[in-house]
Every structure is written in C-alpha cells, then in structure tokens.
C-alpha cells in the first residue's frame, strides 16, 4: 500500500503543467543529444545543468528536466547507430551491429521502430524496477555508518574504475586525481587547503566546471583532432511503418534483455554500455547460429536497445538510494543533486519523498512521451542529424561557456574549464578514463568526512573500518570489482572484434 500512496504523491507532482512541459522538453532535447554523434548523455546533461540553474528551476523541476534528457539521450543514441553506423553515444555501439546492416538492406524504418519499442520496454521495466527496488535498498542503507559509507565509496571507485579502463592503474590514478582536486578549498573544519592564497580556490573547484570541461570541452578537442576521418555515409530512411510481426517475435528478447540490462545498471560502475553488451551477447548465445546475429536481424537491434535503456534506469537506483552513481551520466546527475543541496541517500526517501516519487512518476510518463517521439516522429530527429559539425561544435562550445558563465559570472571559472578540457583531452589520449576523476571530485569530500568521522568514533583505530558485516562485504565486493575485470578483459574485448 505504501507503494501506491507514494505513487499517488508522485503523480500529483508530475501531473502539473509545468512538470509535464519540462519532461516533454527534456525528452526532445535528450533525443537530439543522443542522436548527434559525439554528444553523449553525459556531455549533454553536463552542458545543460548550468543552464537549468540559471533558469532558476526548483529542485524537482531541474531533476525532472535532466532525467528526461538522460532517458531521451538513451533512446536517441540508436538513431545514428542505425542510419550512419556511428553510435550516437557509447551504449548504442552494440546497436550498430545489426541496426546498420538492417538499414543497408532498406529496412531502416523497421529498425528504428523496433529499437524504439525495445527502448520503451527496457526503460519502462527499469523504471518499475527502480520503483520496487529503490525503497528497499534505501531501508538497508539506513544501517550504514561512516565506516560503511567509506567502504561504499571505495566500491564505487573500484567497480567504475575497473570497468572504465583497460588498465587498473590508470583508473585508480584517475580516481586519485579526482580526489586530489576535491581536496582543494576549505575542509570540513574550515582549514584552507591547496589554495596557494588564491581566493577563487577557497570555495573549492565547482564540480560543474570540471564536468563540463572534462566531458564537453575535451570532446570538442577530440572532434577537432579527428575531423574528417569519420566519414558518415548516411542511409536513406524509407517509409516508416510498424513491423508488428517483428516486434511480437522479439518480445521475449526485449524482456530478457531488459532484465539483464537492469541488473547491470544497478551494479555501481557497470552502466549502460555493459548492459547493452551483456544483453546482446546473451541473446546471441540463446539464438545460436540460426539467429544470424550481426547480419541485420530485428532481435539484434531489440536486445541492445532494451538492455541499455534498462541499464539507464537501473543506474538511477544506487544513485538515489546510496548517493553512489552507477555510471558516468548518473555521476553528472549526482552533481546536479549536490548543487541543488539535495543529498541523495536513504534520507532522501523519508525527507523529500515528493522529489523521489515525483521523479519516478515523471519517468513513467516520459517513457510514453519518448515512445511517441521515437516511433511516429522519428523523421524529425533524422533531419536534425544533418546539422553539419562546423555549426554544431562551435554551438556546443558557446553553450558550455555561457552556461558556466551565467552560473558564476567569473572568468576564472571559464579559464579553469578550458584547462579541464585540455586535461581531459590529454588523459583520453593516454587512455586514462575521465569518469573516475568526476567521481573523485564528487565524492572526495564525503569520503574524507566519513573516514574522519569513523576515526573520531573509534579514536583512531583503523580496524573500525572492517568492524561490521556490511562493511566487510562492501570491501570484499570492492576488491572483487577491481580485480575481476583483469580476468574478464578477454571477454570484454569481444565487442570491438565484432564491430570490426
């Protein structure tokens, strides 16, 4: 009954004109962001956050807008995968495998519709999963003390870092860089650190500046470097009809892929890319040789799209209940929450139920909006894909600058953002993942606070960190999550081999 009451509360928030408008706008923007190659969900959300602040939106509205963008981007990623053979974002990589062959065979419209429906199934089931699982997890999280939180943060770094890079040392290094940056400014007791007398640094580095720099601006540099190399030979989109038989035939595929994707999303660090990869691989194995995966079969586009959209919803679970993001984009969403002075975690469900349940209700509605946008209206987005990069890229840059500038009005922040952009580009060249850096900047303060609180409670006894079963379990998972990818790497290398 609790659930129904909560949902009623949620819908009472979501069904206002204002919220609905933001959700529709977010879905629209998100689909565009997802569809444009090079502008992934994390970039898109990062650029839009400062702008949503300067609009003066309240917490629920800003969250609704941004998560709609996030969901929309996950839907939109498939459009350029299918039409251009370029994934619109990283999780849509697996969709190119069967989507582009289908498009070449003249079935681009079918592929778009099937993947649109699959996205809907995945995202919808994941939202239901979020609804059921999140309150339960929040209840467990109430038992967490400082030692457990410290272990939890470690777990997030270990798994996210372990997945994000091919080299554990590089991922760990990235996490440490992020933590180091988080230390700049005043600590919990008001002692200035690493400011070198610079007044701008006293408040610390705003994580939005770092995020927009590391994601969006470095993306511009990468694009400048690789310009012209990626030839995009578009496929004409024929008539869009609804291939009912194919959709029914891939029904079980969508359901199974949604489940796989959701689980992958809930695990901290795994995220949507892993969700779509696992979903595609498991369906391929189930179908066997007869399935002809990779040659342009409908199930081959249904599986990864259901998987990645389900993972996108799943990744919200740890972010909302524990304050630990499950993927790069949820890390950006966490930054949004923290800037709004909302502390995600178990208390969010008791203190601010209207935010959580309003969000969940909006996501349910957003899914239907997205289904409508991505099936009947898909042609509009196809047209937007034709915007030449020579206009798109400067536009992205200017929006990033104006966004940050309108937030702080400080040219120091703009310079800092450019510096982060250069840093991000250099690190990407060196194959050092940037997501752990963001995570480090976001969680660094909390992580230190919890460690110091734990040490104060135990009077400096380091064994306190391993004193509860939950903490020991988290440590074990953290170590496993960090070490396991070293062995799984051979398995994970496969998608590139398939893509070639």
């Amino acid at each position, binding site marked *: 009954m609790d659930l129904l009451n909560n949902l009623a509360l949620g819908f009472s928030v979501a069904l206002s004109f204002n919220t609905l408008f933001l959700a529709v706008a977010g879905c629209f923007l998100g689909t565009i962001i997802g569809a444009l190659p090079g502008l992934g969900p994390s970039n898109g959300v990062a650029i839009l956050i400062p*702008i949503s602040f300067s609009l003066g939106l309240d917490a629920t509205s800003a969250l609704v807008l941004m998560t709609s963008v996030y969901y929309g981007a996950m839907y939109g990623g498939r459009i350029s995968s299918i039409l251009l053979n370029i994934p619109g974002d990283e999780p849509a990589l697996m969709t190119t495998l069967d989507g582009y062959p289908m498009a070449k065979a003249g079935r681009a419209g079918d592929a778009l519709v099937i993947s649109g429906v699959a996205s809907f199934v995945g995202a919808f089931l994941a939202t239901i999963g979020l609804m059921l699982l999140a309150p339960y997890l929040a209840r467990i999280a109430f038992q967490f003390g400082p030692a457990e939180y410290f272990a939890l943060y470690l777990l997030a770094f270990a798994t996210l870092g372990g997945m994000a890079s091919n080299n554990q040392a590089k991922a760990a290094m990235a996490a440490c860089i992020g933590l180091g940056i988080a230390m700049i400014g005043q600590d919990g007791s008001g002692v200035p650190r690493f400011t070198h007398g610079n007044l701008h640094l006293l408040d610390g580095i705003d994580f939005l500046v770092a995020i927009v720099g590391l994601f969006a601006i470095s993306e511009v540099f990468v694009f400048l470097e690789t310009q012209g190399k990626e030839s995009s030979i578009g496929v004409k989109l024929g008539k869009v009809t609804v291939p009912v038989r194919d959709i029914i035939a891939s029904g079980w595929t969508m359901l199974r892929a949604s489940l796989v994707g959701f689980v992958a999303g809930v695990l901290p660090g795994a995220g949507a890319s892993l969700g779509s990869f696992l979903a595609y691989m498991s369906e391929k194995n189930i179908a066997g040789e007869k399935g002809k995966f990779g040659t342009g079969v409908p199930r081959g586009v249904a599986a990864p799209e259901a998987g990645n959209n389900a993972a996108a919803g799943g990744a919200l679970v740890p972010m909302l209940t524990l304050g630990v993001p499950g993927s790069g984009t949820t890390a950006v969403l966490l930054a949004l929450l923290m800037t709004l002075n909302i502390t995600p975690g178990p208390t969010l469900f008791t203190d601010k139920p209207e935010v959580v349940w309003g969000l969940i209700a909006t996501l349910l509605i957003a899914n239907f909006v997205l289904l409508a946008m991505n099936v009947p209206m898909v042609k509009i987005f196809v047209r937007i894909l034709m915007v030449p990069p020579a206009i798109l890229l400067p536009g992205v840059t200017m929006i990033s600058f104006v966004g940050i500038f309108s937030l702080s009005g400080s040219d120091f922040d703009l310079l800092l953002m450019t510096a982060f952009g250069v840093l991000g580009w250099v690190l990407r060249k060196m194959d050092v993942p940037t997501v752990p850096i963001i995570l480090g900047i976001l969680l660094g303060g909390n992580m230190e606070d919890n*460690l110091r609180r734990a040490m104060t409670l135990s009077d400096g006894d380091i064994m306190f960190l391993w004193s509860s079963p939950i903490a020991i379990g988290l440590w074990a998972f953290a170590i496993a999550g960090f070490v396991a990818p070293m062995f799984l790497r051979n398995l994970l290398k496969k998608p590139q081999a398939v893509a070639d």
Partner: protein
Amino acid sequence: MIVVALGYILSATTIQTPLFPDPMGPKMFPYMIAAGVILCAIVMILRPDPEADWPPVQAVMTIGLAVVVMIGYAMALKPLGFLIPTAIAAGILSYQLSPRPLVAAAAGIGLSVGLFVLFRYALDLGLQPFPKDWM
C-alpha cells in the same frame, strides 16, 4: 606524476592544523591520495602500456589554437559583452572544422545572434550584449 604527487604532499604539509584537531586531521587524507598516485605511477612505469598514438603536429596546433581562442573568449566575455566575442570565437572554431571562410563567418554571426536571442529571451538569462561603454 610522481613529481606532481610529491609536490602535492609538500603542499599538504603546509596545511595548518585546526584549533580542535580530530584524530586524523586535515592532512592525512591528502597524504593517502598522494600515496595512491605514486603507487599507480610506479605500476604504470613497471608495466607500461603501448605508447599512446599522439596526433600529428598539425592536429596539436589546431587544438592549441582552439585553446587560445577559448582562453581569449573567457577573458573577453566580461568586458566586451556577448555578441562580438561569441561571433569571433564561434567563427574561428567553425573555420577550423570546415575551411570555408564565408560559411564560417556566417556560422559565427548566426550562432552569436541566435544563441543570444535564445538565452536572453527564451531562457531569460541576463547577458550583456555589447561592451558596457556602448550602452
């Protein structure tokens, strides 16, 4: 990276101790981070990855120019207002992507005006269109 980490430690030693110290104090955590960086750097030196393929000088120059443009833009935005620096910066970036001067100029001016209208009127951001003295 080791050098950076050592510098970080050095900088951390200058952190003042607060009036009411807790068992860990403000220095310990930065020390732990620096230790982590050093450890990772040693691992990376001992087990190096294949060298990253650095782009040709020309591409680095392109990016370098883009950085200069952004720095200039960051400095110019406050004193010169939105329209002029945006048109110039967007125009240069556009030219770097497709070297057709007329198209780039049009893209720069179009983006500048278009974004200004969008930000100022649709989103209601308080942007300064021109240098303050002109107003």
